[in-house]
């Protein structure tokens, strides 16, 4: 019985394209090593799971859940993350690339600055490893925006939830450059947010947001 095998999606820009806000060395390690490790471990866990399904070994299947959630989460989160960043000098990195999203952000938080402040406070409040996300939650015909954190590699996959963009708060995402200066990273990351991608995810469905994952099979 075969399981799907995932591969590392290419970065949509060069490793040094996010400098000076995120260094080339960080991007190389983060994409080439960390993300790759999640994929390698995910593929191994999925293969073992397929065997356990085939042999009706339910205890093994349950035992694999944590490893699948962690490594699949790592693959999902990083795939979304690379796409929701762009070089600071590009048109995508300007909020003008996301007119509809910004409209709803203002309607929700009052103004852009209040939104950033709320997001930064949330990011700095994470205890340990995790992510901060802007999420669109669809409930019937209504939709709302919310800032959420997920611990470790938990992905945003709840009912009606569409991740608009995510910010990696694991230490490996910034430590080589910012050391313990986490607030500076949380400040600078906004200069490389890809608002064009954010707008597309905001206007689209969850399947649209996750299409990068299909492409990585």
């Amino acid at each position: 019985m075969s399981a799907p095998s995932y591969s590392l999606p290419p970065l949509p820009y060069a490793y040094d394209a996010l400098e000076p806000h995120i260094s080339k060395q960080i991007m190389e390690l983060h994409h080439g090593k960390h993300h790759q490790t999640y994929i390698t471990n995910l593929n191994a866990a999925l293969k073992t799971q397929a065997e356990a399904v085939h042999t009706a070994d339910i205890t093994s299947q349950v035992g694999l859940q944590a490893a699948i959630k962690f490594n699949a989460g790592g693959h999902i989160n990083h795939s979304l993350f690379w796409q929701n960043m762009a070089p600071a000098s590009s048109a995508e990195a300007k909020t003008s690339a996301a007119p509809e999203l910004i409209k709803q952000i203002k309607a929700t938080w009052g103004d852009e600055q209040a939104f950033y402040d709320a997001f930064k406070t949330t990011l700095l409040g994470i205890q340990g490893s995790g992510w901060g996300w802007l999420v669109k939650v669809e409930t019937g015909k209504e939709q709302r925006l919310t800032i959420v954190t997920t611990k470790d590699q938990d992905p945003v996959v709840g009912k009606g939830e569409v991740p608009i963009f995510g910010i990696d708060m694991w230490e490996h995402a910034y430590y080589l450059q910012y050391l313990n200066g986490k607030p500076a990273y949380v400040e600078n990351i906004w200069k490389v947010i890809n608002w064009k991608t954010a707008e597309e995810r905001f206007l689209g469905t969850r399947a649209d947001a996750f299409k990068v994952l299909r492409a990585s099979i």
Partner: protein
Amino acid sequence: MNSTLLRTTAVRSALRAAVPSTPARAGIAGTTFVRGKATLPDLPYDYGALEPAISGKIMELHHKNHHNTYVTSFNNFSEQIAEAKQKNDIAAQIALQPLINFHGGGHINHTLFWENLAPTSQGGGEPPTGALASAINDSYGSLDAFKEKFNTALAGIQGSGWAWLVQDTQTGKVGIKTYANQDPVVGQFRPILGVDAWEHAYYLQYQNRKAEYFKAIWDVINWKAAEKRLK
């Protein structure tokens, strides 16, 4: 030896800090309700003394910046919780609990960690003796088998956290437990030996190769300090 004195002081202050503060009496507005503040303990060795296992730069940042932030944040939130108690604000007290756990845990964990490390010139890496050696052999067969299990536990931590050799206060037996983030070893278990698996503990030197850090750290484990914690 001075370092022994420092170590003892450090542990006492950490444990004192971990004890829930006694109920604050009615006081004058503006009074500080926290009695003794937690302080950053001195390292019992130089920042560079654990090289090559752990670089001097990591030790300096880890002690002077990371640990110190836990200390100042713990003091800050302790003061806030004392004020909330004073005002009988139960909701605020509950909201502050996770912050006390996180920052107080960070202070306790790091204080124990510095102590259970030592340069090779001060006995780092020398295997345990006596009761601890017997307890490890009873539970794991050999020190090498124990290290292997411990490193597997470290590698299995999903996110930030610690692995500890603990003693079960009910049975007296030793075992390996992992804790998320800065959750401290309190309650049923007694901390004997801890290894920090947060990325800040190794990243500048080992980057994504954390297995190498887990392997190298045994060269600077202070088993003498661990032995003293066993009861």
